[in-house]
């Protein structure tokens, strides 16, 4: 080990004492991480309930749901949902899930909690910024929920202009609610930028002695690269959001062309803008965003699979390079969402090649996960089950992306349920599976107690079978041409034969959604009553397993550890245990090639 001059930044703020400073406006990355996690947990259940309501409306458009009439008097008179309420539910479902669940839990939640510990730091680089970023996210969530109660917006999570830009003439939800939606997204952008900046600086500057870049756990790499994507992506979305807000409030017309006639009313206010411009700006952010949603999950899954296979990760360097190239290519493919938008057909060809190219690093990751399992001695804990489920779902969802990536096939499949199936498989459930895997894995560290494994497994089995049963049939619906974002399937002759399939999907969705209550119960029950967790229940090698569960205020109590090994030294021949901690200063018994 070369001795490096040690100029570690000492932990500036002492442990706070009052309740408010300790739990509400806390500067401790662990508390903020937990806050993020709980925010995501709340949001995911809101999103889940919305999806259940959506599935109800799709198959029983005229049924009256008891109690709903009282909550949404205009959207559901007498408890019967209107088509516009359906679209609002869908918009909210998509927005909440993408922004407030998949961008918060894996990065803001686990990243915040675990990253500083894994690299041996006492906290994030900018604790105050960290706190701000959480609270601004929280404000964003409030604004979004408020939108739902003002006039729920209905232009989808992609908010295509002019529908989203011209105000209430375009539909009942396009008034104040849509404005709040944009404000919410803008706040979210600001918060994510603060968070991303903090993550990058922390990873670069606060690694402890010996924590070389190529010794960082893959989780840290994933969070780091995600932060870079977020920094570059959200800044563009922020610009786009400002412009859309101006279109709505200041009378500019960046995204609205002249001469619109909406329900026989000529809009003279707008002149000369371009709807495609919004789509470009949105997807320039939007595609990196979907990788923001999944890269941290990939990191966590790599960590978990290696740990429970008791085997070093297969091809550590290849995994790092694959993460980098996914991130890099991720900025060059946004046009695949716009093949049929009126975009130049030449651009479509370029975007198509680049999109298929992303399959290559993704395949490397898949192979290496399987390669890690291969020859291992696999311990099927609940966390491991979720991680393996993730790999299976990622393959399924990723391959359907290859269909959509070819414009000639996308002509038919775009905006059908095939797309819905694709993104639920890979994002809706693969990423969520990674969150679950991470939850079962880090819960003991975060809360000092173990989650119940038996319930966890039951939850896993139902969810795994459930999501396949929900989303595989959606591919078939796409193939027969069922368009997405339809409130009912009663108006088209060709759709009527497929209503039974929708029935099947809905029923399975209700069961699967119900099964999530098992998780909720397990979570809160174990929080209070679970068995106490040891320092290192999974016999894992990374730094967070060298500190007590839960870790003390500044993690290492002022004595940052030194690191001597790569992160995944399992099953080392000749070592006394079957794993070697990163802090273990004895050299490995065999030459490892590192």
């Amino acid at each position, binding site marked *: 080990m070369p001795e490096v001059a040690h100029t570690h930044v000492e932990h500036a703020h002492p442990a706070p004492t009052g309740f408010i400073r300790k739990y509400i406006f806390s500067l401790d990355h662990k508390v903020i991480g937990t806050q993020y996690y709980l925010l995501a947990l709340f949001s995911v259940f809101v999103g889940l309930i919305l999806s259940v309501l959506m599935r109800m409306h799709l198959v029983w458009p005229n049924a009256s749901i008891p109690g709903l009439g009282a909550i949404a008097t205009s959207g559901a008179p007498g408890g019967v949902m209107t088509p516009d309420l359906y679209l609002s539910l869908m918009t909210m479902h998509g927005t909440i899930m993408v922004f407030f669940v998949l961008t918060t839990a894996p990065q803001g939640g686990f990243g915040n909690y675990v990253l500083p510990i894994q690299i041996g730091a006492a906290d994030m680089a900018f604790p105050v910024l960290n706190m701000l970023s959480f609270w601004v996210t929280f404000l964003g969530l409030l604004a979004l929920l408020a939108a739902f109660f003002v006039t729920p917006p209905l232009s989808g999570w992609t908010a295509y202009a002019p529908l989203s830009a011209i105000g209430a003439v375009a539909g009942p939800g396009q008034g104040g609610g849509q404005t709040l939606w944009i404000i919410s997204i803008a706040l979210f952008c600001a918060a994510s930028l603060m968070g991303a900046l903090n993550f990058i600086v922390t990873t670069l500057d606060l690694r402890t002695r010996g924590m070389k870049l190529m010794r960082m756990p893959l989780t840290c790499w994933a969070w780091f690269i995600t932060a870079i994507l977020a920094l*570059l992506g959200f800044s*563009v979305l922020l610009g786009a959001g400002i412009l859309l807000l101006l279109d709505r409030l200041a009378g500019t017309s960046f995204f609205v062309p002249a001469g619109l006639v909406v329900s026989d009313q000529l809009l003279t206010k707008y002149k000369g803008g371009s709807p495609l411009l919004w789509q470009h700006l949105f997807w*320039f952010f939007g595609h990196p965003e979907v990788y923001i949603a999944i890269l941290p999950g990939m990191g966590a899954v790599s960590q978990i699979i290696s740990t429970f296979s008791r085997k070093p990760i297969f091809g550590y360097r290849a995994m790092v390079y694959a993460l980098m190239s996914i991130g890099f290519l991720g900025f060059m493919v946004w*046009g695949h969402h716009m093949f049929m938008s*009126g*975009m*130049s057909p030449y651009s479509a060809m370029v975007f198509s090649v680049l999109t298929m190219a992303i399959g290559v690093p993704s395949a490397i990751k898949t192979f290496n996960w399987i390669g890690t399992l291969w020859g291992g001695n696999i311990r099927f804990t609940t966390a491991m089950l979720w991680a393996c489920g993730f790999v299976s779902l990622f393959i399924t969802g990723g391959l359907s992306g290859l269909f959509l990536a070819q414009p000639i096939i996308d002509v038919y499949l775009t905006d059908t349920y095939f797309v819905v199936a694709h993104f639920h498989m890979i994002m809706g459930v693969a990423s969520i599976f990674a969150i679950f895997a991470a939850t079962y894995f880090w819960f003991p560290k975060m809360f000092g107690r173990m989650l119940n494994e038996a319930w966890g497994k039951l939850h896993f089995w139902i969810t795994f079978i459930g999501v396949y049963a929900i989303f595989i049939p959606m591919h078939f619906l796409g193939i027969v041409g069922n368009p997405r974002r339809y409130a009912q399937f009663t108006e088209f002759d060709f759709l009527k034969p497929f209503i039974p399939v929708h029935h099947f999907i809905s029923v399975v969705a209700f069961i699967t959604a119900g099964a999530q209550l098992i998780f909720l119960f397990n979570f809160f029950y174990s929080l209070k009553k679970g068995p106490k967790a040891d320092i290192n229940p999974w016999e894992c090698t990374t730094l967070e397993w060298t500190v007590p569960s839960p870790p003390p205020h500044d993690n290492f109590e002022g004595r940052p550890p030194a690191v001597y090994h790569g992160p995944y030294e399992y099953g080392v021949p000749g070592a006394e245990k079957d794993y070697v901690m990163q802090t273990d200063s004895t050299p490995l018994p065999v030459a490892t090639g590192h």
Partner: protein
Amino acid sequence: MSEQGHAGGKKLYLSVWFWLLALTIFEVILAYQRLPLHPMLVILMALSMIKAALIISYFMHLRFERMSLFLTLFPALIFCIVMLMLFFPDAIRLYELRVP
């Protein structure tokens, strides 16, 4: 934080300032040369890039930092801006397909 603080003397900064002003004046004069729009755009952008480079390297001290800082920050920014340029084929298509 200290060693590079003294990297340049007053004189250096004043000469950078002078060059920035000179380039600005040059741009203004150029703008009145009745060039067609596109060559003008290219020249003006090139000049602005030089100005930006002067500000970044001297006023913002990047020249006196480690090369790695530059490599961390700017390739990503430049890459994204180049990517944003991919919007333009569409701007031209919009120009062609536009209806009043």
